[in-house]
């Protein structure tokens, strides 16, 4: 049995004697006897480190993952430079708590300040918080920002947001008594801008994603203008890895930019931990939830970083706080910042260009196959796109035989495909051949 308790039996007895007790049980005298557990917990027998390692690897084997992946929909396989996990494993970082004692936490606080700066530079906005749990909760928190800033209890959202994001927004909105109104997509796969104005009565703002769930790049400038025309705010939900090549939220007038930082150097890890980033204009800075690092000086004039604007937060405002968040995804945030700093301006552009190139090549090749059509052929996209085919299920089954994970089958029967810099073009031909064979073998059965 593994134990991380260093005190020996002798130590314990001496320590007990020191406090005037005889046995461990005496320490729990305050607990009513009839409540105490009278049996050992019924848990699996403890494992040695070697057995544990075998067990976890056995779980991993059952997963059968590892082959080419053409699936995104909110979690993406990008190249993670080796320096990132190694630096994140500096235990001065990962075994630390929240940097409340600034003098001994400058490493984390400065890293956080740098992260906030990176997010501001990606989005073009003035201020970023220390991060929230993920993109979906960032969207939920953004709803509350809109409510608090505009003091209105209605928000319009694009049907192009990721369904998980919409689901989480709905859960939070129900509790907050907020009305959510969905803006439909048009036949180009993007939000119907003309639906904004008629719905803005009493609304605090609009939230839309670009690229949206179906991969389409949205007319964000028009959406922002429509929200502003009705005195509303505009929230842009963006995939940060697009921002080396696509217009930035501030460029098209977003007041708040949010999203999930997973594409920036974080492993897919079956859905988490990721990091939700949030940035806003200066005017909205104080509406940002949770922690924020700031710069100040010590008595000698040295630059020092601290957690600041804390009187907005739950530990001080309690039920008056705008959010209950009491942590951030610090380590993930720092990994995302490291990623952007490894990549630099040229790397961020190149990774964006590679994604665009790979996804467009794949789309072209798939489109050539009879029985497959691109759903939104005229709409620009980044690294994801939807195809329609009657053979979606069969295609994915055939690909799975080769350990290839095909596009995600959507509720409406379409397939959402994704290609990143991690997909070699040689894979595309192989995949297309398998698909062609599959469709051929299905021929006439339709």
């Amino acid at each position: 049995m593994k134990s991380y308790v260093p005190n020996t039996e002798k130590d314990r007895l001496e320590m007990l004697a020191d406090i005037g007790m005889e046995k461990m049980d005496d320490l729990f005298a305050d607990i009513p006897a009839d409540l105490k557990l009278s049996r050992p917990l019924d848990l699996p027998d403890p494992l040695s480190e070697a057995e544990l390692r075998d067990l976890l690897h056995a779980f991993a084997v059952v997963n059968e993952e590892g082959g080419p992946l053409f699936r995104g929909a909110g979690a993406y396989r990008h190249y993670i430079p080796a320096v990132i996990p190694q630096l994140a494993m500096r235990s001065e970082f990962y075994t630390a708590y929240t940097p409340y004692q600034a003098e001994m936490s400058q490493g984390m606080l400065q890293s956080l300040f740098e992260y906030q700066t990176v997010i501001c530079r990606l989005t073009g906005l003035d201020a970023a918080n220390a991060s929230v749990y993920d993109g979906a909760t960032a969207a939920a928190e953004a709803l509350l920002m809109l409510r608090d800033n505009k003091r209105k209890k209605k928000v319009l959202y694009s049907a192009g947001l990721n369904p998980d994001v919409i689901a989480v927004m709905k859960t939070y909105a129900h509790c907050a008594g907020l009305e959510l109104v969905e803006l439909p997509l048009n036949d180009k796969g993007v939000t119907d801008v003309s639906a904004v104005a008629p719905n803005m009565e009493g609304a605090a703002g609009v939230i839309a994603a670009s690229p949206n769930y179906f991969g389409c790049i949205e007319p964000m400038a028009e959406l922002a203008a429509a929200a502003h025309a009705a005195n509303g705010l505009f929230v842009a939900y963006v995939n940060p890895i697009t921002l080396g090549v696509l217009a930035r939220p501030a460029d098209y007038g977003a007041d708040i930019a949010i999203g999930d930082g997973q594409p920036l150097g974080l492993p897919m890890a079956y859905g988490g931990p990721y990091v939700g980033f949030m940035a806003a204009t200066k005017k909205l800075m104080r509406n940002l939830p949770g922690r924020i690092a700031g710069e100040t000086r010590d008595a000698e004039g040295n630059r020092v970083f601290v957690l600041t604007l804390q009187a907005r937060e739950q530990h001080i405002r309690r039920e008056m706080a705008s959010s209950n968040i009491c942590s951030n995804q610090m380590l993930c945030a720092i990994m995302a910042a490291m990623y952007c700093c490894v990549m630099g301006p040229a790397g961020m552009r190149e990774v964006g260009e590679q994604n665009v190139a790979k996804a467009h090549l794949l789309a072209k090749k798939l489109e050539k196959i009879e029985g497959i059509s691109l759903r939104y052929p005229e709409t620009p996209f980044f690294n994801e796109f939807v195809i329609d085919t009657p053979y979606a299920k069969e295609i994915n089954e055939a690909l799975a035989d080769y350990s290839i994970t095909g596009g995600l089958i959507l509720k409406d029967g379409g397939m959402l495909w994704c290609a990143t810099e991690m997909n070699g073009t040689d894979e595309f031909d192989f995949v297309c051949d398998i698909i062609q064979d599959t469709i051929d073998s299905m021929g006439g059965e339709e």
Partner: protein
Amino acid sequence: MVPNDRKYTRDHEWVMVEGNVARMGITAHAAEALGDIVYVELPQVGDETVMGESYCVVESVKASSSVFSAVTGTVVEVNEELDAAPEKLNEDAFKNFIAAVEFTEINEDELMDAEEYEKFCEEEA
């Protein structure tokens, strides 16, 4: 110390009535108790205030404190200077009002004059 040109509440706010408009702020005693004030969350012109309810929040580094309205009415003016310079409340809380409210309801009996307020502070301590 405590100016006698105005009235005071038990929550350490001052109120100066001119016609149907009440100018309101916090007392020096309140400002001192809060310490260095770093932010004043001002109401907006047009906001409704309710007697005895919070209409503003004042923050120090480690605390936040609601400021309660002495009157029921509508905010007609706010002291925007406090937005950029919240420290003015520490420098002279009586010279710097927070908001002016055109009121429909006030309970003068509940308010103290300067002498009564000074005595109230002493008793509280």
